[in-house]
Structures are given as structure tokens and as C-alpha cells.
């Protein structure tokens, strides 16, 4: 079902964890779909210095979280925004059709974290919109049930 690359990223996930006092935090997804992705960003000089994730989800969700965080680390915000879901899926040597939404989730999670960063710092980042399923990052905000 999954490519070797996906299995590798699932088995050896990178950038798992939290960042204390993160500059931006974003959570997307919902339990109904079985995937929740939370991204922490450390941003300095418009550059993503560090990124961590926590993900509740299937193998593909874990793998895309790993791949996406690896791809954006060290990049400028503008560069990072160019990394869309297809780029992530491609870097994973593809995803099964039913799992493509996981790569969308990764893209959205990054945007949600960046949006949170922009909001906090009252910045306007070109091309960045509030993500559709943006959850204002308060403690316990995902506990909708």
C-alpha cells in the first residue's frame, strides 16, 4: 500500500515533539476523519529555525508530517509556503489515492502555524490565508468531545 519512503518516514519519524514558547502553533484536522496534525514553529529572521509536530493519524499522516517538517526546516516563510501537498506527496514517492488528504493536512497544518505566527506578530504574509479548519490555538482546543 505505502511506498518504501512512506514506511521509512513512518518508522523513523523526524521532528516529533513540541517547541516550548513556539512562535507559531497550528492544529488542523478533526477526529471524524481520523487525523489531527499539530505543528510548532520557531521562527527567526523570517526563517523557520525549527519545526516539530504531533500527529494523531494513520501511517501516511505520520509520514507526511515528517516529510513536510523536514522540507520546511531552514527555509524562509515564503519558500516554505511554496511547499504544497503535492510536493510533499512526491517527496514520499507518492501516496495511495485515499491517503492524499494527509498531504493536504500537512500543507494546511503548516499554514495554520504560520497564520498563528502572523496573528501573534500582527504581520501580513503574502499568500497566507486563515486555513479553512483553523483552530485558534488555546489549550485544549481540540477537545471537542
Amino acid at each position, binding site marked *: 500500500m505505502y511506498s518504501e519512503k512512506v514506511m521509512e518516514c513512518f*518508522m523513523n519519524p523526524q521532528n516529533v515533539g513540541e517547541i516550548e514558547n513556539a512562535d507559531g502553533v497550528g492544529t488542523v484536522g478533526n477526529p471524524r476523519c481520523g487525523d489531527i496534525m499539530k505543528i510548532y514553529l520557531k521562527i527567526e529572521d523570517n526563517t523557520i529555525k525549527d519545526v516539530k509536530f504531533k500527529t*494523531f493519524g494513520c*501511517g501516511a499522516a505520520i509520514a507526511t508530517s515528517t516529510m513536510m517538517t523536514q522540507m520546511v526546516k531552514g527555509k524562509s516563510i515564503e519558500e516554505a509556503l511554496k511547499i504544497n501537498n503535492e510536493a510533499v506527496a512526491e517527496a514520499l514517492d507518492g501516496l495511495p489515492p485515499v491517503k492524499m*488528504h494527509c498531504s493536504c493536512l500537512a500543507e494546511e497544518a503548516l499554514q495554520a502555524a504560520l497564520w498563528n505566527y502572523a496573528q501573534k506578530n500582527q504581520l501580513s504574509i503574502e499568500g497566507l490565508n486563515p486555513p479553512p479548519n483553523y483552530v485558534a490555538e488555546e489549550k485544549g482546543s*481540540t477537545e471537542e*468531545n
Partner: protein
Amino acid sequence: MIYLDHAATTPVKPPVLEAMLPYFTEYYGNPSSVYKLAQRNKKTLDDARAVVARHLGAEPKEIFFTSGGTEADNWAIKGIAAALKEKGNHIITTNIEHHAVLHPCQHLEKLGFDVTYLEVDGDGLVTPEQVEQAIRAETILISIMYANNEIGTIMPIAEIGTVARAHGVVFHTDAVQAVGHLPIDVKAENIDLLSLSGHKFYGPKGIGALYVRRGVKLPSFLHGGGQERGKRPGTENVPGIVGLATAIDLAYQDLAVKTARIKTLRDYLIDRIFERIPYCRLNGHRHQRLANNVNFSFDFVEGESLLLLLDIEGIAASSGSACTSGSLDPSHVLLALGLPHEQAHGSIRFTLGEDNTQAELDLVLDKLPVFVERMRSMSPLYEDFVQKNS
């Protein structure tokens, strides 16, 4: 490999395969022909039918071979609907049936039928009283599964049969998970129609049967040649039918002994999981459940990722959600039990078979807590939970 997905399918037992083999290359005759090669196979079919009938307490003439459980379910449900549509348009079933029952019912709804999906309780049970209360003058069919494929809960079929018979409503049961695993007596239990599928009890895939009580008028679902007394046309899958009959015969040999052994293993696994893994939940009835079914939800963890980790260790299990069916919905069965979505997504089903050993379960019990812990450490839900409780 440690195979713990016997509710999904089972390997064909060597004696079953052996019984089938001559029918591929040697006794290949079409049973509808007149020459000896073919007539021999006609007799083979009669014998197989008698074996299946005997284990269900039915008569041979009441057994019709189908291509599997799905066809048997479709035939029973759509057939009765077509036959009795003048009498009424109401069907009673439950909200935890297999899709092979639910989807035909939904299809009938589009054609104007009215379907009551009885809500099960937290253990997956419906009561005979619920069934009785749902019966109306227009009720033409009650279809309630014998045992659930995900959570293993066994329904009170005999009691429901009594209710159905008392009200003169045709009673179908999807017994795909029960046949070969539980003693069944269609007469004593007042069952009118019963579906079964060979590959769930060490028989081959692609063969099943529908029991149709004498006197129940069920129109054909497939139309064509004269096979199965004109009721189910198509050249008979002779090797498959031989395999099905051999498998059901073996399944009911020493059933009580085998069941007791598997039940002991099941309870061993259940008890140890509770001991070793916090924040989990056994899905399905604790006792009124199939001897081989263990279904747990592990909070904060999604099921598929656990399955992948187990698979890498050579452990084959299943999650509630139909991952590859193109649907991302969590199990309708677990939702019906009242589980929140993330728990419904976090379930793992282990279904034991005749060959599983305690040593195998010990290996699972070694790995599973580690894997759950590992996935929890990555889970934002667990993070939230810990923060909230710290």
C-alpha cells in the same frame, strides 16, 4: 507471521484443499451434463448440500450455494423485498450490520422501502423487545446478524426468531461470522433465511450459501440456467462447494473443545491488555461474544498506524475502519456503540484462530504496549490530555 485476523478471512485447511483438488483437474465435469464424469459431480453436490444442511439443522433442499456471504445477504434481502412488496414495505435491521446487509437495505430505501435500523446498546446488543416494538403491519423482513464481525457480540437470535415467528415476519440472519464457530439450529431458532460464507471457517473464498426455509417464497436473484433447482443459476463451483462442505464439517468437529481453548486465549489477551495498557476500552460484550474476538480502542491513538507497526513485527491484525475501501469514515459499528470518533478510529481487532498459541499472544503483549506508548508520544490528543490532567 502471527495471523490474528481470522474474522477477515482464514487460510484453507490442508484437508479442505485436498478434498477440493481432484475437482479442478480430474472430476471437472459440469454437473448438468448426462455422462458419468458429470453425474458423479451431481452426486458430489448433493452430498455437500446434505453436509451443510446437517450442521445447520436444515434439510438439504433448503440449502442454496452462492458466491459468498455478500450474495447470500443481497439475495435474501432484495428477494424478500421483491416478493412481499405488495404486503408491506417495512424492514427491520440493526445499525451494526455488515455492509452486505446495510447497503442492500439502503438501496431498498431508494426504491421506497422503509427501513428501521435498531440502535444497539453500548455492548452491541439489540433486545427481542426492541425488535417486537419495531414490528408494524407492513413489516415484511427482519434481518439481524448472528454475531458481529468487528466486535464479536452475539445477538439473541433464538429469542428474536421467536418474536419474528409469532408475528409472522420473515427472519433473516447474516451468520457469516457465526457458522462454523457457534452451534446453530435454524429450526429451533426459528430462522427463515441464513447467510454463510466459506472463507470464514477455513474454507475457500468465493463460495457461500443461503439457507431458505421450506415454505418461504424467495424469488431468484440471478436468472439463467437450471442449476440449484433453477433458484441460483450458473455453472456450479464444484471445488468450492466441496471445500465449503469439508470445511464446515471440520469446523463442527470438536467445536466445544476448540471454542474453550480459543476462549481461554481470548480472555488471556483481554486481561493482559487491560493490565498493561492504560486508557483503553474493550469494544463489544464482555461475555456474549465470539470466542475468538478481541477488539480494543486505545485512546489518543489511531488504529492504522498501530496495525503498521504490528505488521512490521509480523503480526497481522485489523482496525475497525475500512482503510482501503476508499472511505475515511470510522467504523459504523464502533460509532453505534457510542464511541467518539477518535476512539472509533483507534480500535484494533485481534481475531484468533485454531492455530494461535499463547506464545504468539505473549509476543503481541510484548509489542503492543510499546507501540501504543510510541504513538501516544506523537499524538496531539495525548499531549492535550496530559496537559489538562497535570
